[in-house]
């Protein structure tokens, strides 16, 4: 499959560079370019691209408005190319809320210090976005099969899970910001346990994201700080660029924020956090894996599962990218496979 890409950017310089980079990947093909939101909408209607790369700041119509309109025309994954600054975070999160699927830095050096590597990553992301998106859209029958299967399997441990968990941990990646918002906004302020959030996101974005969730949710949401003790009714967002580990004993849980290994692909990494949880209070933990590319979280869920913790995974239809939840479901770890809204509803019932 060749992935058809539409490039949207008001700078002809950038359009050209992007097209050049994308052309280096034989799996990708640039079918059109647009210099503003309005043109982008026209091109989407005309060419039906598989992925749209979208700039934020453009004349005539900006990226966020364009994303919103594209969503109403044709379901197309949109990759925001934004500045990875605190300022950029706000508008990027706005774009995600408007319906953009994922985001990458406009300065490719932010992706990797190696230019070639950064370009490869960009292409890879575009490809995955298209295939992951198509997987979550098309394979409905296959999805049903796994769905019912795991649900049968889930029936059993459901009974043993009779007490409320002492900790909820949610791991997610692509599509996560919106998914987390959908889940957390349903929770009451009196939510009985602390929540750990691990969202793959750059360091410049997580503070804005935590702040944003905090204003939208009844529960308190904040970016986790080193040495912070966990309090019920509060969600702790793992800071970008670092690893968040759980420390202490049950009843006296606190967080350790560590730089982590340079080689780690994800910062923060769901697996690392989940592993640290498994060691301390695995049995009393409910781990949730939401939409995301790749398979981060599968090993962590396995550790928690071994300690008799509970695992929920988001279902295929509601996932933006059915990667991480699929990895968990395929490994047979999921106690429940739920629609995104259902996850929020059932979590709320815990209180």
């Amino acid at each position, binding site marked *: 499959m060749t992935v058809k890409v539409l490039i949207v950017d008001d700078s002809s*310089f*950038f359009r*050209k560079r992007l097209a050049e980079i994308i052309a280096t990947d034989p799996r990708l093909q640039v079918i059109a370019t647009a210099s503003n939101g309005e043109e982008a909408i026209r091109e989407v209607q005309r060419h039906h691209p598989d992925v749209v790369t979208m700039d934020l700041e453009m004349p005539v119509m900006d990226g966020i408005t364009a994303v919103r309109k594209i969503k109403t025309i044709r379901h197309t994954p949109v990759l925001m190319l934004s500045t990875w600054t605190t300022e950029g975070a706000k508008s990027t999160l706005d774009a995600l809320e408007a319906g953009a699927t994922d985001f990458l830095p406009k300065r490719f050096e932010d992706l990797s210090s190696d230019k070639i590597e950064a370009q490869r990553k960009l292409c890879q992301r575009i490809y995955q976005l298209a295939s992951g998106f198509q997987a979550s859209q098309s394979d409905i029958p296959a999805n049903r099969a796994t769905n019912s299967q795991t649900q049968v399997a889930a029936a059993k441990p459901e009974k043993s899970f009779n007490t409320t968990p002492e900790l909820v941990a949610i791991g997610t990646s692509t599509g996560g910001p919106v998914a987390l918002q959908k889940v957390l906004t349903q929770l009451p302020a009196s939510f009985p346990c602390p929540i750990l959030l691990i969202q793959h996101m750059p360091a410049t974005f997580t503070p804005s994201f935590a702040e944003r969730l905090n204003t939208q949710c009844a529960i308190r949401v904040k970016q986790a700080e080193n040495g912070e003790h966990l309090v019920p009714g509060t969600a702790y967002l793992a800071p970008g660029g670092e690893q968040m580990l759980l420390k202490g004993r049950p009843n006296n849980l606190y967080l350790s924020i560590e730089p982590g290994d340079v080689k780690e692909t994800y910062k923060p990494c769901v697996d690392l956090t989940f592993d640290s949880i498994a060691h301390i209070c695995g049995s009393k933990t409910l781990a949730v894996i939401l939409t995301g590319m790749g398979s981060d979280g599968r090993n962590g869920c396995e550790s928690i599962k071994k300690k008799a913790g509970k695992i929920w995974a988001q279902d295929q239809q509601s996932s933006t990218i059915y990667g991480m939840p699929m990895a968990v479901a395929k490994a047979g770890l999921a106690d429940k496979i739920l629609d995104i809204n259902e996850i929020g509803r059932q979590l709320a019932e815990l209180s």
Partner: protein
Amino acid sequence: MALDTDDEILQDFLVEAEEILEGLNEQLVELENSPQDADLLNSIFRGFHTIKGGAGFLSLEAMVNLCHKSEDLFNLLRQGERFVDADMMDTFLKVLDILNTMFAEIKSGQYPSPADAEVIESLSAYLNNDSAPASAPEPEPEVVEEVTPPPASTESSSADAPADDEITDDEFEALLDQLHGNSAPGIKDSEKAPKEPPAPAASASSSSNSDDITEEEFEALLDELQGAKKAEAEKPVPPPAAPKAAPSPSTDKAAEPKAPTPKPAEKAASEKVEAKAAPAKQAADTSVRVDTSRLDEIMNMVGELVLVRNRISTLESSFENEEMAKAVNNLRVVTGDLQTAVMKTRMQPIKKVFGRFPRVVRDIARSLKKDIDLELRGEETDLDKNLVEALADPLVHLVRNAVDHGVEMPDVREAAGKPRQGKVVLSAAQEGDHILLTIADDGAGMNPETLRRKAVEKGMMDEDTAARLTESECFSLIFSPGFSMKQEISDISGRGVGMDVVKTSISKLNGVIDIQSEVGVGTTLSIKVPLTLAIMPTLMVMLGEQIFAFPLVNVNEIFHLDLSKTNVVDGQQTIMVRNKALPLFYLSKWLTKGRTDGKKPEIEHVVIVNVGTQRVGFVVDVLLGQEEVVIKPLGALLQGTHGFAGATITGDGRIALILDFPELMKVHANRGY
């Protein structure tokens, strides 16, 4: 490490960024007039943003840093968290200058050197100080009308503003400009202002809405500010600048009519820019970069082709073959199309030159303390790249002149019953195969009497000659070398060298310059130049056995003349054309050899030619007709021959010299035109 200037990526960047930079130049000046125009702020923000993005891609760190800071600041501006003031404007313009320097460095293959730390610092200061100034301007507009002392809190909050201890000249000027700018004529309600010196901030801002404050009073206020509350030195600036003060409903009628007027123009202008930017960008995608020398080469070859076509169509007329005629006709059409197409590749919008004027006018107006509105028209008019470049300097000069000499000081204007704000209109339009450029001001105009007197004083002519000059001849005097209109010489213009040079450069482009002026109403200068320099429509004439080409743009009219009806005035043979005496010359006397004056026919052909601002009649032997010719420079052998713009090959394969009238007149008639 040096940059690879041949790198296509770098070239792409330069092309795009330069376009943006030109836009910024204009937009920033526009911003000064409408500091809260959201579209404008957005578009400036995007400009810096895009340059930053490209520079980042190429790791031009110095540029990234500068653009980044500016972008951040504009982000605050567009979100309404800060407001533009004159000081900030100056910083932006400095940023622009630095960016331009950086571009020059990049173009010459060097990494740009880091920006002036001072500028970066002042940008950072604006960025970090967002809380204090943001809160200060809000309460200020309220106290604008009631001249009550401002609450103590305002003063203390403004104390942490970024303040120098001294008010610099620039700042003072900025304040003055603000006052002039925001005040509308004819409002008389703030005699109180000077009576309330204990509340300097309040009175300063209240007087910003009035007209009656004199400069002395203002200076007194300033002194007070400086002495008592140094930290507040900059504070009075933001309130008048914060444009909320002007259109706010509490403001009285005087301010109201002023606010809406600039708006539509601004809007229209920015819309035009936007609309224009979109197609241009799209075109850039499919564009190929071609060296101008290659275009010149192509143009040259097309020129040759035109000559061959001319040749063939001349030959064809001697055959009476219909097929042949058809083929030749086809050739004619195709060559014509090709010629137009190639010419178009060399076309550039005059915007390239016009774009710099808002800044030029702003700077001069500021240094002269004048208030001037510059209007640009027909910026999309296309003309040959070489012409665009060649016109830049003369136009700058003329616009400077209009601002410096043309438009009067605001007080003078007011006394003459004109609006305080002067207007300069710069326009371009295509008229057939030439471009008409006009620079019009609504200033004092020129008095022919003054010019006459001046000419006599300078010993350029005696009184009788001066008295005989027509009005337009008087105006043309300003193009004479060493003739300055202004009594005292300013450093902006008025040295009298300029206009002379302007005229020469326009003449070199085969252009014609014309002045119209009315005392008290204004002056309009119009320049006519051909669309392109490479191919020229000419009038072919014969002198004896030789063919000469008159640039058609110079040719005014042609008629048969009974040579017995000429008069001699001042030793110069003249003819009367519609009650106007024009000097008459026999071109063959100048350009051909071995002609006896004896056997002159009674009726001769006379071509009236525009030379500079004058009209002159030339007697020629035979009129051949109009022909488009390609100008070939004269070879090295003919170096130093004056009076010829070049040569060309005519349809019948002969060589024709193309006349350069201004030169010709200088050499043969001892007259400067």
